[in-house]
């Protein structure tokens, strides 16, 4: 679920790219400051986006700090810190900890264990500092978990499953209770849905193979997956039919994802964001698709089909 909300580097100006890096490093540094260097594991592009958004929206005072990064110790770099950074870093810790803890407990994923072990103490502290957010994260992750465990009841549509992630992120996006609470909540909600569905779209083939829950399952089977069960069909023909169906499915999923992105952007355009709006728009209108393109290219290259 981590990392979809990044910039499209190719579309950025060098100037903007440098700025973005400073925000990135600033958040990383603030995470390390709040709980030791391993807390940096909670860093993700999604949180950098939120950090930049909130700092910019609330017109926060930016402090530039020159510092060393343990991973790149050769040169000092400039990092931006604001008050919102502390909030965002705590939210990042909360999300990373509870998300990865589930990964570890269910799938025995080693990464999950590593991250959750490293963040345990910090997550406790963050939960104490923001009890409301902690409860929301716990609640929605639990609901999502139950849904995925039950393999999704027949009634559970895309909206329901994606809505849990949406509501969780909506809560995270609300920094202060004020005028901007509503648009921020709406933004977080649809961005959360986007992230969840993007993740589901990317994993569909893997999930079908392993019998895991995926909200796209029914549509995928209808459009493409059914060909795998047509044993009497000729191999070449089957593959071709499958490819056609997969294309149709991808177009369908793309349309849905676009809707989510559109709603998120509608809410964003309401907010009086002036500084760094180019970077934020780069992320919202282009960067969030970078991963999508990458996956599509991977699929195509893997099958040695030329895309026209």
């Amino acid at each position, binding site marked *: 679920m*981590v*990392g979809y909300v990044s910039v*499209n*580097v*190719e*579309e950025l100006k060098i100037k903007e790219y440098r700025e973005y*890096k400073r925000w*990135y490093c600033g958040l*990383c540094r603030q995470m390390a400051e709040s709980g030791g260097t391993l807390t940096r*594991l909670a*860093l993700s*592009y999604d949180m950098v986006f939120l950090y930049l958004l909130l700092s910019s929206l609330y*017109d926060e005072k930016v402090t530039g700090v020159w510092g060393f*990064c*343990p*991973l*790149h110790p050769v040169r000092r770099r400039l990092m931006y810190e604001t008050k919102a950074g502390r909030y965002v870093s705590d939210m990042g810790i909360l999300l990373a900890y509870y998300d990865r803890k589930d990964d570890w407990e269910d799938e025995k994923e080693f*990464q999950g264990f*590593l991250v959750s072990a490293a963040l345990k103490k910090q997550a406790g502290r963050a939960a104490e500092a923001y009890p409301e957010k902690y409860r929301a994260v716990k609640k929605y992750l639990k609901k999502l978990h139950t849904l995925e465990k039950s393999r999704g009841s027949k009634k559970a*549509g*895309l*909206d*329901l499953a994606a*809505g849990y992630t*949406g509501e969780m992120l909506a809560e995270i996006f609300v920094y202060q209770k004020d*005028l901007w609470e509503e648009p921020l909540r*709406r933004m977080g*909600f649809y961005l959360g*849905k986007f992230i969840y569905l993007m993740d589901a779209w990317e994993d569909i083939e893997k999930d079908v193979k392993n019998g895991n829950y995926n909200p796209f399952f029914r549509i995928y089977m209808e459009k493409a997956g059914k060909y795998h069960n047509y044993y009497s069909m000729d191999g070449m023909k089957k593959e071709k039919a499958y490819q056609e169906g997969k294309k149709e499915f991808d177009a369908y999923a793309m*349309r849905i994802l*676009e*809707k*989510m*992105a*559109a*709603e998120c*952007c*509608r809410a964003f*355009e*309401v907010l*009086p*964001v*002036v500084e760094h*709006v180019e970077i934020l*728009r*780069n992320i919202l*209108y*282009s*960067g969030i*698709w*970078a*991963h*999508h*393109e*990458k996956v*599509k*290219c991977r699929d*195509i*290259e893997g099958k040695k089909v030329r*895309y026209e």
Partner: protein
Amino acid sequence: MSDPYQVLGVDRNASMDDIKKAYRKLSRVYHPDANINNPNKAEAEEKFKKVQEAYQQIVYEREHPYAGTGGGFGGFGGFGTAQGEDDQESVELRAAANYINNRHFKEAMHVLEHISVKNGQWYYLHALANAGLGNNLTAEEDVKKAMQLEPDNWQYRQLYQMLQGGGNWYEAMGNGYGFGGGRGVQTNCCWDIILMNIFCNCCCNPYGCFVCRPC
């Protein structure tokens, strides 16, 4: 109420970005935090509120160009109330419509769940309630069903177009900001991936370095 454009000191045809800039400029001047030592603190605060209200009003007017003519949810007007039918069903439908008008979508949903006869209007209200709750995909399905049941109803078609319009709007906005090529398949994927990787490493992304997920 005074003209919001005058409060912000911008032209009526100003772009949204210009309005945001004007708002930001004024809100910096009048923000309570910036006027702690100001003898006319109360005045500044008053002005700050005015600026906020003006900004909100402009945003609202631009988002709902038809508002003010019909009232009701999103400017869709009333829901064809009372046509002489006073049976249980239409009373309940009206209750649901009222809830929707007052933006109590959960309650509206609750009322709708208890109605067994599902006609075009039911699906329409169900769609509105779903849209209000953020279930935009289900809302679209609902309104499609409503349109199937009553193909001539312009209200249903209007809602359908509104729900459909998001994607087009998004694409147009993206193109407007110069991200047209961002989502087409780029000519050289390898370069993208390499660039992404360089980028990840540059800014010390821990996922890119030792917990390689998903980068």
